[in-house]
């Protein structure tokens, strides 16, 4: 059995990338896994062509949830809203590059759930009840 704790995951937990607040973000949304306390808020700044020019996140939680957010936020740089909307759980798992068991799936995909929520909110949709207030 290979460990899901590959060096990449641990390094991203210890030295996260894109971990910053963007004050004038166009998209800004947070959510959490109430059962385990993973907590992520994503900030996205768009350019005139509606492409991601800057992205940041704040959050706390397990190494899997935090590494996943690092990887996802890096992946979406330069993407349009439509491109981001097409991202699937499988794309994210591929970025993580590890086999995620059922028990840890919620940790792994929280970042994508937050991104989807951010886009939904940006487009004027109603936001869920579990929006993180202060991450």
């Amino acid at each position, binding site marked *: 059995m290979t460990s899901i*704790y590959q060096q990449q995951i641990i390094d991203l937990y210890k030295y996260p990338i894109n971990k910053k607040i963007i004050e004038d973000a166009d998209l800004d949304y947070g959510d959490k896994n109430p059962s385990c306390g993973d907590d992520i808020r994503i900030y996205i700044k768009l350019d005139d062509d509606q492409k991601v020019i800057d992205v940041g996140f704040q959050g706390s939680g397990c*190494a899997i949830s935090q590494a996943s957010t690092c990887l996802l936020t890096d992946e979406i740089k330069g993407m349009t809203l439509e491109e981001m909307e097409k991202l699937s759980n499988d794309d994210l798992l591929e970025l993580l590059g590890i086999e995620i068991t059922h028990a840890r799936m919620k940790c792994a995909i929280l970042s994508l759930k937050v991104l989807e929520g951010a886009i939904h909110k940006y487009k004027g949709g109603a936001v869920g009840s579990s929006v993180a207030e202060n991450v």
Partner: protein
Amino acid sequence: MLTIDEQISKIREDFPILNRKVRGNKDLVYLDNAATTQKPKQVIDTISNYYLEINANVHRGIHALSEEASELYEQSHKKVSDFVNSKFEEMIFTKNTTESINIVANGLEDILSKGDEIVLTRYEHHANLIPFQQVAKKTGAVIKFIENDDNYNLDMQSAENIVNDNTKFISFPHMSNVIGSITPAKELTKLGHEYGAMVHLDAAQSVPHMKVDVKDLDVDFMSFSGHKMLAPMGTGGLYGKEELLEKLHPFLFGGDMIEYVSYEEATWNVLPWKFEAGTPNVAGGLGLGAAVDYLENIGMDRVSQIEHYLTKHAMKRLEELDFITVYGPDANSRGGVISFNIIGGDNGMFVHPHDVAALMDERGIAIRAGHHCAQPLVTQIMKLPATSRMSFYIYNTIEEIDFAINSLVDVNKMFN
């Protein structure tokens, strides 16, 4: 007399599951006993024998199997009531602590009224909190909480400040399932009675681990789970003083819990059956009886001694590690439950309990991570996202604990 280590080895022979391998040929190290315990062969054989030889509905048929099943089921009630020193009529079989507490809380609905006070503690497992939140909403009663001291021991001074003439009901755990603190159950019960309050004890984490005597404690109600004390899942008990159970409104209605029935009316069966509606979990009930036999055979004092031996060793080893923070009192005033976190020491990195548990699991070690069904305690009082928890029972060994703690050293090295 056997040494403790010899006795543990002997006990392990009764638990075949402890020999299994997990996660690719790793020896299973089961340290999640506060969640549920493993079952000895004696309990499993009792259940299997019931279905192979006896299976029939109880209290109904005038035929051989039904009579045998009914007799064994009642014998099992007797064993369990003797185990905690209650009367036969005072011991109701339920499916778990949660159901037991719901029976009591449901009964409070026509006893409490607006302005009455329910007193709980900061330790509460959700099972000992939500049912009372609901009663409070329905009746207008108010819930108040007894505080802990800095070591997470229950603060009797706070109890004395909070309990007053409006206090109608007090419920608290005998031992915290998160931090292992043992509460002064007798003292707190006495305090409640001085103000005329009824007292319920959540004994889910004490009945399996120590001698509990309801008459000595003088509690009015007490709940526990069979599955946390070697018995099958779907078993538990509710003790209640006879005169109070007589007054309490039944929780479930239907067959077996009635005496006379017309199209318009019904009267209730005698205790304990008034609270056991419908076909019961007979095999489970017999399994619970077998678990009690098993524990009595070891002796509850010896059970506590074994657990204390393991807990003391684990606490000592953990205290030597500066990257670990253990929550709660020292080994002498706690049960076999240890909540901790890898904080990382000076300038270290907090390792999230889910990562700790997952990395332990890769080594075959079962521990629990999260808020242990006591979310307010962990997040509001301890102000933590979660903790890791190891919890011991009579079949755990010093070697297992050493292996687990050495694994924590490895986990810390990966991050720090």
